[in-house]
């Protein structure tokens, strides 16, 4: 699968633009601030129904306008040898201020945005990836949940439902505090679905990690010279199978705190190196390898889940990575590990020299 063309209208810095891509490597070059990241974000939006950096939809509208549109034509190449002609699918995203965002597939609207997620998977690597190590548990949950959502529609549905329950329950806890009364029956109405969905999501995360971890460790080993052991653990706020009792026991605590203090929305993924926390004990180089391996393992795990490779978006990463890790990425491109790749760089001569030995076709788009 690859993105053949992209059209944007009033999206971020773009008034109106149209791009044609090739199925192999696309290098988007141009000065900083010219819109390279916004172009990749448009592709990300088309795949994940939202901006990569958590920017709200209204802020994606070009300044002074009141709607934006992104449209992409994806081509599927049949994997088998039947030589059937490739089929093309058009995805359109439109958002108008104050209205519901809509996604259309071949001009037919998806009933729900969630029905689109995962159909056109992407993996994005950008300079903010180190947030996965540096920042709080929310970043890591978002990374793993986002990956699982692309592979498993039921997981996404459960997660959306669970998050909604927590939102409702937190608001309810605040109301109880304001009024000084507690409606036990109403509080109970949120307990059972929270337990049921929470357990399902927690087990799914455990199962997912079993598939993901070997991919991750393989990539880390290839990115790093040393023989250090890396690991990812789920640090849960409850023992699997005991969410019911855990939430019951936390009810007084929740009423006092006016929010749901325990559950899968508070669980974390811990990153370890030789059994110690990576954030404290990993060197700069080890942390960089860790982050790149997280993303490459995301690519592999998504590619294993479906008979199509995700699009790989490499946004401005040559500045941030050192030679060793860049060489590894280029080597993987040479080995045809990836499908369609998008690279942005403010220094075209650097990209050209890095990619000069690749046999595959490379297209340069100057913005």
């Amino acid at each position, binding site marked *: 699968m690859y993105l053949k063309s992209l059209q944007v209208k009033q999206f971020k810095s773009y008034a109106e633009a149209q791009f044609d891509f090739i199925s192999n490597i696309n290098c988007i070059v141009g000065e900083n601030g010219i819109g390279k990241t916004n172009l990749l974000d448009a592709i990300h939006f088309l795949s994940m129904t939202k901006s990569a950096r958590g920017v709200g939809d209204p802020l994606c509208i070009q300044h002074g*306008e*009141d709607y934006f549109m992104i449209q992409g034509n994806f081509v599927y190449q049949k994997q088998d040898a039947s030589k059937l002609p490739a089929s093309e699918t058009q995805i359109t995203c439109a958002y108008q*201020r104050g209205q519901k965002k809509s996604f259309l597939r071949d001009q037919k609207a998806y*009933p729900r945005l969630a029905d689109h997620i995962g159909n056109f998977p992407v993996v994005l690597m950008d300079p903010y990836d180190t947030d996965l190590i540096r920042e709080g548990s929310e970043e890591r949950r978002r990374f793993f949940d986002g990956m699982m959502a692309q592979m498993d529609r039921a997981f996404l549905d459960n997660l959306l439902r669970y998050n909604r329950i927590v939102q*409702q329950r937190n*608001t*309810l806890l605040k*109301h109880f505090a304001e009024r000084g009364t507690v409606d036990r029956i*109403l509080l109970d*109405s949120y307990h059972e679905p929270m337990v049921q969905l929470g357990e399902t999501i927690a087990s799914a995360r455990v199962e997912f990690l079993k598939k993901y971890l070997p991919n991750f460790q393989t990539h880390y080993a290839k990115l790093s010279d040393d023989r250090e052991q890396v690991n990812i653990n789920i640090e849960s706020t409850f023992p699997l199978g005991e969410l019911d009792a855990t939430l019951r026991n936390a009810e007084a605590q929740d009423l006092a705190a006016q929010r749901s203090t325990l559950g899968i929305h508070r669980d974390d993924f811990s990153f370890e190196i030789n059994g110690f926390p990576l954030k404290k004990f990993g060197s700069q180089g080890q942390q960089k390898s860790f982050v790149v391996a997280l993303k490459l393992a995301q690519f592999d795990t998504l590619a294993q889940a479906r008979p199509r490779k995700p699009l790989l978006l490499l946004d401005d990463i040559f500045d941030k990575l050192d030679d060793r890790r860049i060489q590894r990425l280029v080597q993987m491109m040479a080995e045809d590990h990836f499908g369609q790749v998008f690279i942005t760089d403010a220094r075209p001569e650097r990209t050209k020299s890095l990619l000069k030995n690749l046999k595959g076709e490379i297209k340069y788009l100057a913005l």
Partner: protein
Amino acid sequence: MAMNNYPSRIIEQAVEEISKLPGIGKKSALRLALHLLKRPESQSLQLAHALVQLRTETQFCPQCHMISDGGLCGICNSHKREESLICVVEDMRDVLAIENTGQFIGLYHVLGGIISPLAGISPSDLQIESLIQRVSSGKITEVILGLSPTMEGDTTAFYLTKKLKEFPIKISTIARGIPIGGDLEYTDEITLGRSIVGRVVYE
């Protein structure tokens, strides 16, 4: 271009009010306002009159809380309906959807919404007390919960089940031929008709 400056305060006010309606942005609101100005004055006055009447003269059935022209609604008043059977729904659109299936012979109870702390809707804002009163009268043998299969619909169904537990009645929910996250209103009539016939009894 952003439309913050209108040439007229009156236009601005009209756009402001019209754009408060669901699904209508500022641009559409302006289009509608300008359209009304192009049409004969009588059309706008009739619209305004209809809106005022809608809001001030609409009445609700004292028994099921569906919109009525005064007194009991047509369904509650009918001798052909099974009075021991009540289907609980969110709003009048659900009543119309179920009536269109022609499969349901009982009466309704319109809650007027579903429980959602986020939307500021608590059980006391809904017709839940009156439902309990209807059931406690002793004439009811079965309550069918015909709420949307959304998280809020499920929570409300759970709450009602707990509230009605003490009464010797059967509580069931319409079978889920309805897609997850779907609204009752958008479900096609055949699916809904089958759902209401093949309802599931709550534990």
